[in-house]
Structure formats: structure tokens, C-alpha cells
């Protein structure tokens, strides 16, 4: 292969190619990858790209480490679930639930932000960790409203389920059911959210956030209200996370503490953000796709590798398919050491380093 440009711009071109590839595969997912499991993976990828990008807004652009982001995700998801369960299946219920969820998330984010963003980053991280686990406990206790540990199963409008058929003939060998319509709703909304977030971070607002991240005192000295900006970005990212949560609930038609509020999800999101690249938004796309594919297919690869080395018990145990998180964890730590800007930062080359 001949290098036609400097490595730096080559990386940028590669990044562009990857992003376009991801976009096209997600846009054509129902036709390219038939089968319910593939469609499910694609929908989860769409939802988590939006969720991870909203976390990147917080972590990458504002330098705020929060472990409470799942609460906002949960607000959106439970908002949709509770309104649908109370009002019956209708688009109004979905819309109202999403709006209520977003409003609740923003209100809570404002409270958390005003109370605790004045303290240092470490304190904030610890406080959010405690608040997140308390929220998960509360949700599983208020079983009258939230269904408790079992969660809520609810119905969505028929037009979004596989009961609805939109074309009598299959298109490219795929029957156009409501399930596919549902997928495209999720795809379109996620795309809109990503576009909006890109707009926000490339606006002056995003530059101020980066300035605060790089040097809080200097930003304050120039005349920006640091706390105000931090609260604002916390509220914004809470709103985006709640929207992603609403989409997730619509896709799954179920919410439960383990699916939307668990600490494990928070850790997954953290890993996706960091591996993809903090402070880039595009990193959310690449990190999420990699992580989701790894979750689905790394286990198969490890299983077949483990079958090759049954004579070495330690190696076989390390390659046990259940241990895929171990390798993700190792990758996570290594990427913080060697690629602090993640895959996207690496491909772009240079750029500002997050602290």
C-alpha cells in the first residue's frame, strides 16, 4: 500500500471511512444483517451511541467524572415505561413519558450540580457513586410505581411492533414490519441527538467547557462562570441521557433496575467512552460499536481459542468466554496509559490531551 499523505491525515481519512461505514451499516442494518439478534444488537448500538456521547459531553468536554449518569438514563426509561403502563399503549404516552423523563432528569441534574459541583472532582465522583446506588435501591423499593426488582413490562403502539406489516411484498428479502419501523425511529432519534451534541460542542459553549477542563482558574479569570457552565453541561447531558433511556425502553418494551440503573452499565459506558476517545463525541460511536461487537463476538472467539489450549489450565481459564470482561478491563487500563485520547484521538493524532 502506498502512503499518499502524511500519517496524520491518513488517520483522519481512516477515521472518516470508519465513521461513514458505521453510519451506513446502521442505516441499512435491517437489510444488511437479517435476523432478530442482529437487529437487536444494531438498535442497542444506536441507543448506546447516544448515551455514551451524552456521557462524553460530561467526562470528555467538561472533565467531570460522574457515576450517576445511569440515573438520568433511568429517568427517561422509567418515564416512558410508567406512562405507557398507566395510560395504555399510545404514542402520546411515549411522548409524554420521554418529556417527563427529560424534565425530571434535568431537574435532578441541576440539584446535584448545584450542590456538589463546587467540591473537587474526587468528591464529586464519590458523591455521585453513592447517589447512584441509593437511586437504584429506591427504584427497586418503590414497587408500586416502578415494579420493583422485577421491573415493568409495557406495551408500545402496534405500529412499532412486529404485528404491523407495512408492505405486502418483502423488500430485499426482508418483511417490513413495525419492528423495523421501531428500529428506524430509534436510529433517527439517535442520529438527531448526536448531531445536536456535535453542534453543541463545536459552538462557543463547547470551547468554554474545554477551557474549563484544561484550566479552571484561567477560565474563571477570563470571566466565565465555571459553576454555571458545569451545571449547564450536567443538565444538557442529563437530558440527552434521558432521551437515550426513553429509546432503550421503547426498544426493549421493558425496564428494570438491572437493565438501566446497575453499576455495571455505568462501568460499560465509562469503558466505551474512554476506549473510543474522550472529548470527541465521535469516540462514542467507535467505542460503542467496538464494545458491543466485543460483547457479542469476543466470547465466541475466546471460546474457540480456549478449545485450542486445553492442556494449559491457566491459559484456558483466562480464555474462558465468561472472562471477556477481564480482557476489556485490561484494554481499558492500557488505553488510559497509552492512548489517553482513545481510538479517535489516536487516529486524529495530537490534539489536546484530557487530564
Amino acid at each position, binding site marked *: 500500500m502506498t502512503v499518499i499523505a502524511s500519517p496524520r491525515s491518513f488517520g483522519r481519512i481512516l477515521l472518516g471511512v470508519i465513521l461513514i461505514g458505521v453510519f451506513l451499516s446502521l442505516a441499512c442494518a435491517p437489510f444488511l444483517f437479517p435476523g432478530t439478534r442482529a437487529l437487536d444488537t444494531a438498535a442497542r448500538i444506536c441507543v448506546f451511541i447516544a448515551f455514551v456521547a451524552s456521557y462524553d459531553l460530561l467526562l470528555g468536554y467538561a472533565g467531570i467524572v460522574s457515576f450517576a449518569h445511569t440515573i438520568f438514563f433511568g429517568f427517561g426509561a422509567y418515564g416512558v415505561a410508567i406512562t405507557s403502563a398507566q395510560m395504555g399503549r399510545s404514542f402520546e404516552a411515549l411522548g409524554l413519558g420521554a418529556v417527563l423523563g427529560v424534565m425530571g432528569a434535568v431537574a435532578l441534574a441541576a440539584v446535584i450540580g448545584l450542590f456538589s459541583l463546587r467540591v473537587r472532582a474526587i468528591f464529586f465522583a*464519590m458523591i455521585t*457513586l453513592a447517589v447512584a446506588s441509593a437511586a437504584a435501591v429506591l427504584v427497586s423499593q418503590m414497587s408500586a410505581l416502578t415494579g420493583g426488582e422485577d421491573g415493568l413490562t409495557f406495551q408500545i403502539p402496534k405500529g412499532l411492533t412486529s404485528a404491523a406489516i407495512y408492505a405486502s411484498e418483502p423488500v430485499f428479502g426482508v418483511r417490513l414490519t413495525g419492528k423495523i419501523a421501531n428500529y428506524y425511529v430509534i436510529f433517527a432519534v439517535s442520529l438527531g441527538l448526536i448531531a445536536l451534541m456535535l453542534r453543541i460542542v463545536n459552538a462557543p459553549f463547547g470551547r468554554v467547557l474545554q477551557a474549563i477542563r484544561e484550566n479552571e482558574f484561567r477560565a474563571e479569570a477570563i470571566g466565565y462562570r465555571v459553576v454555571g457552565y458545569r451545571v449547564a453541561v450536567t443538565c444538557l447531558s442529563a437530558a440527552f441521557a434521558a432521551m437515550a433511556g426513553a429509546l432503550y425502553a421503547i426498544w426493549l418494551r421493558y425496564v428494570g433496575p438491572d437493565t438501566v440503573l446497575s453499576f455495571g452499565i455505568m*462501568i460499560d459506558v465509562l469503558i466505551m467512552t474512554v476506549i473510543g476517545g474522550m472529548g470527541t463525541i465521535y469516540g462514542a460511536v467507535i467505542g460503542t460499536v467496538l464494545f458491543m461487537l466485543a460483547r457479542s463476538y469476543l466470547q465466541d472467539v475466546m471460546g474457540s481459542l480456549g478449545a485450542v489450549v486445553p492442556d494449559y489450565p491457566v491459559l484456558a481459564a483466562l480464555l474462558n468466554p465468561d472472562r471477556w*470482561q477481564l480482557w476489556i478491563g485490561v484494554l481499558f487500563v492500557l488505553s*488510559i*496509559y497509552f492512548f489517553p485520547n482513545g481510538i479517535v484521538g489516536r487516529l486524529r493524532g495530537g490534539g489536546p490531551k484530557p487530564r
Partner: protein
Amino acid sequence: MTEGAAPAPVHTLPIRVGLVQRIGEWAPYLLVPCVIVAGLLVMAMQAALPPDQWLIPALFGGPFWLDLPSAMLGVLASWTTLTLAGLAMGMMIFLMASGLTLVFGLMDVVNFGHGAFISVGAFVGVSAMLALSAWTGAPSLSLNLAAVGLSAAAAMGVAGGLGLVFERVIVRPVYGAHLKQILVTVGGLIIVEQLIQMVWGPDEIFLARPHALKGSIVFHGVALETYRLLAVAVGLAVLTSLLVLLRWTKIGLIVRAGVENGEMVEAMGYRLRRVFVLVFVAGSALAGLGGILWALYQETITASMGGDLMVLVFIVIIIGGLGSVEGCFIGALLVGLMQNYTAFLEPKLALVSNIGLMVVILMWRPQGMMPAAKGR
């Protein structure tokens, strides 16, 4: 501080400390008995007894528990049990949190992977206990205690060793960068949890306490669980030795000075980084001890127990004030007591009540009750 009429010409400004200030210094210590008494009051109120049935005899009578109606005796009995449980839990959390708070104070390093040492200590200790099952099953107190002691030593040793590796591999490359520290130590926690699942399997392990630590001592009709007494004793012993070590030895002096002003200590020629490694390892070992004690308390262990306990540990070190052993101790007792009283009164709110406690204390003292790390 009422002084005599002795003239003091050297002092132009009389140094008089106001009452509020003097109480304020001791307020954190007073908070523990306050919470204990508040717990009794709330429990009595919940039992819906008018206070004259017990308050007046309690204030004016001698051995007032003899005159109390039997319902009140029941409240007193459960209050005593809960208080002991809260103190025991507080002691265990203190063991887990003390190392973390010192590590932070000394090097401004926060270790979100501290929970890994708790889990590892618990798993190693439980394995040792299972290996010593001949001793733990024997109806002899000394053999049982020897088994517990040996497994605690094993837990501390392995957790300390892991701490050494953790410090070298995970923490050292990211000194001075908080965001990276948080991320990398979370990564370390994931890796250690997965390794535990690899070695011990993904399922939870159940264990039985040694024979002599199972029952309870009945004292004036109040059942005091033996194991909780042991936990309180161990916690007090560790606290005392830590305080003695910090107060009266040279290494303790260096640690305290390092917490207060690290640059100055380094300027005097001490390699604070070596001291830091020592503290990190000791803190990991203490977390391992806390882990095995917690495992014996709950009688079941999972790989994620350390991560779950970190929530309480963080609350404790936040309300105690980062870098302070005493603050950490008081914070741990408050959290343990609060958790047990609330769990008795309204089980749903146990964790929420501790968050409330944290919010109240942070509003009172934003740096925590007795912060030791100054100017950070």
C-alpha cells in the same frame, strides 16, 4: 478557660476560646453518642410509649430497667442489639476506609479500586478458613480464634501483596492526574473482580462462622452476639495501634507531617513516595482484614462485595474528612449506627439515610468533619 486575675503583660491579646468553638472542636466526637441516643428516642417513639414511662425513672431512678414495663424492655433490648451491630459494622467499615483516607491525605491519590482488596481479603480468608475447617469446627474457643487469626493474617498478607502490585502497576503511572486515577483504578477493580471469578468461580460462597463465634451472650435479658463483640474488639485494637503508631513513632510523625504538608517533608530529605508505598500496602492489608471480618459477619461472599462496600466507604471518608484517621473512625461509627437503626425502623431507607447524613455533614462542614489534608 476562666483564668485568675493574674496580670499577663506579655499578652496584649487575651486568647480566649469561645464556648461554641470549644464544643465545635469536640462536636464530631459528641455526634456518636448523640446518634445513639437519637436512635433510642426514635425507637421508643415508634414503640408508641409515652416518655414518662421510662424517661423519668431513667433520670431519677437507680437501676431503672427494673421498673420499666416489659414493652420498653423490648425496645431497650433491640436498641442494644442494634447499637452493637452498628458499632461492629462501623468498625469493619473503618478498617476498610482507614487506609484509603491516609493514602489520599498523603499523596492526593484516590483509589476507586480499593474495594478489590476487600474482596480479595474476603476470598483468601474464607479459603484459609475452609482449609482450617478442622479447627473452626472444633468446640474450642482458642482453636477457633487461632483459625480466624490465621485466616485474617493470610487475608492481610495477600491483600497487602496485591496492594504492592496495584500501587506499582495501576497507580504509580498516573500520579497527579485525578481523572486518570479514577478511571485507571476503576479498571483495576474490574480486572481484580474478574480474576477473583476466575480463581474462585462466579458463584457466591457460603461459609459458617467458627463454632465459638456463633452464639450470643445474654446479659440482663439482652442478647449480644459474640461475633459482633469480636469485631468491635478488633476494630478498637486496630484504631488504638494506628493512633499509637501515628502519634508516637517516627514513621507516624512523617506520615502525619506528609498529610499536612508533603512538600515540606520532602524538602527535609524524606522520600515520601516510599512512605506512601508503605501506607498503601498497610491500607490494603487493613482492607483485606475488613473483608474477612465482613465475610464472617455476612457469612456469604461474592466477587462484587468490595465494589458494593465502596459506597459506604466513600461516604465514611467524605464525612470524616479526607486524610484523617479519627474522622474516618467517627464517620464509620456514624454510618454503621445510622444504617442499622434505619434498617430496623424503615428498611427501605437504610442507604438513603446515610446519603442524608453525608449531605447534612457536608453542609455543616464542607471539607468533612475533621479534614487533615490542608490546602488541597
